């Protein structure tokens, strides 16, 4: 057995980088969430008084408190924003599944050459800018936009979709659809077709084989896709901000507003900490599933 010292040394640079630029900043968010807002730059208190030595640190520690969290709990606005983020993400994920599954299924049933072209066609929009894709929908959904032009042309009354929840769902489905289609397709593509033939030979009608064979076997892809959509949707900022208008409350937007508009850094940090705690369970689930898939792939 060879020693793996060289390979392990490769970990040092990324480890240090992530320690300084990912882990440590995260500790700062946690610390700040226990601080108070102040009219200063940076706009929070307390600051560590390094010149006072140990006493300065002690004074700093004693000034930290849970006040910001208490305020989060007492202010309905935050709770409403959390719940509505979770609802948007859950329904958005479900809609992505409903739209994405038939596409993935159709792709998997095509001939290999067609499949590769379709795969490229599904991935291509994902490579273009997220912001631009959301922006494209503004021109379609706004009152004098393309959707209403089309409706008018066939004699139907116009709809006002922009700045409503419906617009947020359309944007979420549009932006996250590839994340749902690709994992499901990857599982369906590998599925053994003879299983369906066996079911048919035994007299099962196609819809029944679909529910009893295809769907259960594709569940790992569905879970992966659902988590890949749900996790980022909860913290989404661009879609609700551009398509949802002022009434749409989502937590990513709340952090942004607290930070940039209200300059309340401790509240923004506390909201971020709670958001992350909400996401711990789906994130851990996702990582465990990935680890399992990796082991199975070897």
């Amino acid at each position, binding site marked *: 057995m060879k020693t*793996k010292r*060289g390979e392990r040394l490769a970990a040092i640079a990324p480890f240090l980088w992530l320690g300084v630029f990912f882990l440590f900043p995260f500790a700062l968010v946690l610390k700040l969430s226990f601080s108070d807002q102040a009219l200063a730059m940076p706009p929070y208190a307390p600051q560590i008084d390094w010149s006072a030595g140990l006493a300065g640190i002690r004074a700093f520690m004693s000034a930290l408190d849970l006040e910001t969290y208490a305020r989060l709990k007492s202010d309905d606005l935050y709770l409403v924003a959390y719940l509505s983020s979770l609802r948007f993400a859950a329904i958005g994920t479900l809609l992505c599944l409903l739209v994405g599954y038939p596409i993935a299924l159709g792709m998997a049933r095509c001939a290999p050459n067609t499949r590769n072209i379709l795969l490229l066609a599904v991935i291509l*929009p994902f490579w273009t800018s997220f912001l631009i894709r959301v922006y494209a929908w*503004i021109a379609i959904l706004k009152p*004098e936009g393309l959707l209403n032009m089309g409706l008018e042309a066939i004699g139907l009354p116009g709809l006002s979709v922009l700045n409503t929840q419906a617009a947020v769902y359309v944007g979420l489905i549009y932006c996250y659809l590839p994340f749902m289609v690709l994992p499901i397709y990857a599982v369906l593509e590998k599925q053994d077709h003879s299983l369906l033939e066996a079911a048919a030979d035994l007299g099962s009608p196609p819809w029944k084989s679909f529910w009893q064979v295809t769907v259960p076997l594709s569940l790992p892809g569905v879970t992966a896709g659902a988590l890949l959509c749900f996790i980022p949707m909860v913290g989404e900022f*661009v879609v609700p901000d551009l398509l949802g208008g002022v009434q749409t409350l989502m937590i990513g937007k709340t952090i942004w507003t607290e930070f940039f508009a209200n300059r309340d850094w401790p509240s923004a940090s506390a909201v971020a900490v709670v958001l992350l705690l909400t996401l711990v369970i789906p994130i851990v689930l996702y990582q465990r599933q990935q680890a399992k898939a990796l082991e199975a792939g070897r």
Partner: protein
Amino acid sequence: MRKGPTPFNIAAITAGLVFLYLPIAALVLYSFNASRLVTVWGGFSTRWYESLFANEALMGAAWVTVRVGLISATAATILGTLAAVALARGGRFGGRTLFSGLVYAPMVMPEVILGLSLLLLFVALRIDRGFWTVVIAHSTCTLAYVAVVVHARLVTFDRSLEEAAQDLGCPPIRTFLTVTLPNIAPAVAAGWMLAFTLSLDDLVVASFASGPGATTLPMRIYSQVRLGVSPEINAASTLLIAAVATAVLIYAIVGKWRRVKELRSEAGAGRRAAA
């Protein structure tokens, strides 16, 4: 017998593709509209492209974005490849779980939190926010994607080649440079491309990490879009979409061409062996 797609499958695919491409097609079409209004087709015109190129704020932002992308993608590729090598080849070392968690966590972390935490770091260290803080932020966020792509390639690649080189006395660093690296090069290149496009695309993290004088293109586009639809932004988007589409197509064609070449050389070797 393998069942082909049913009419339902074909309908689902068609509807899906229309849904995916219709908004983009409309965006591109209206970038050539002479009228400022979306609802009025005022004839074909390239006037928005002209005014785009004359718009120094947008062009300056585009240049900042490209530079940030080039530097941060390169940094992310180096760090991500190192991380992938350690994870795929390092065996079980102390802190491996912490390390792999650290590497992959930025991928699932909401962007607002990443941006916020980096901003707090820069404030705490009294670093003036600007070009380089955006570079650092993007390198941190995209490193994980490079690591995933390169790691996937490393675990499928036959490691006995590396072991043979080392048995023959090749020092580890040279083995890496002459055996491992050429073999994982396509994955490293794909990782770089992914990091680069993610950096070009990012609005949220850049908004937190950036300061005066370092406005990226997405930040500029965002502030204009909030004021409403503007044909100039349509023109800029069309150019970006064209650039990305060209890059992806070239990548796909080169990949296909390389596979064909490999097949041919294998077939040629087979013929020679038979003769």
